[in-house]
């Protein structure tokens, strides 16, 4: 169908210090209702959003990391992580709580250029 647009959500912030990560996730879940081509990108500190084993009791904040696992049920299966961002933080794909596609900076830039809409968080 020609009215399907490519939406990319670019997540660049760590999960709890600011509201960006949670806001992004909520917009993603709402967007899922509109049957568009949705990709999620995790860059810079954004890769921390996907770190396994988050425990938020001590900071009395909702642990929304498990919600990323629900995305599959919402038919959102395109999750991309930039390799350089992961490397710079000592993380590997095994540290992440969902299956992702790891891209180089260059591949990420090209993918970004192909989108109809880029939403920045």
């Amino acid at each position, binding site marked *: 169908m020609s009215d399907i647009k490519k939406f990319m959500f670019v997540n660049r912030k760590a999960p709890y210090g600011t509201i960006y990560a949670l806001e992004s996730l909520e917009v993603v879940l*709402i967007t899922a209702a509109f049957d568009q081509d949705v990709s999620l990108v995790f860059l810079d500190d954004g890769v921390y959003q996907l770190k396994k084993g988050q425990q938020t009791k001590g900071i009395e904040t909702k642990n929304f990391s498990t*919600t990323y696992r*629900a995305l599959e*049920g*919402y038919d959102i299966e395109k999750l991309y992580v930039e390799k350089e961002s992961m490397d710079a933080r000592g993380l590997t794909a095994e540290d992440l709580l969902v299956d992702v596609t790891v891209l180089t900076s260059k591949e990420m830039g090209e993918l970004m250029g192909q989108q109809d809409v880029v939403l920045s968080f």
Partner: protein
Amino acid sequence: MPNIEVNGKSYETDEEGYLLNLAEWNQDVAAYIAKTESLEMSDNHWEVINFLREYYEEYQIAPAVRVLTKAIGKKFGPEKGTSQYLYELFPYGPGKQACKVAGLPKPTGCI
């Protein structure tokens, strides 16, 4: 904040009657909320309510109706995985009404 009272214990809710603290939920509260929604609770109703509780426990969100329908069908069989089935159980919307009985917040993206 409004309150509801069940078996002598008081529970805080929001303006629309959704339980504020989902840890306080129990079957009696659920039955009470169901009555205010004019629902006759059957085993089929409870099946959906318990499923929603488990889903929330695992993912920390209440699922969108489309997602709930698909997941119910997968778990309890295709004859239950239709929006018609869920709307018959919860005429005012499986998302909105069932979540209320289940003590969950309104589903994200519920319009």
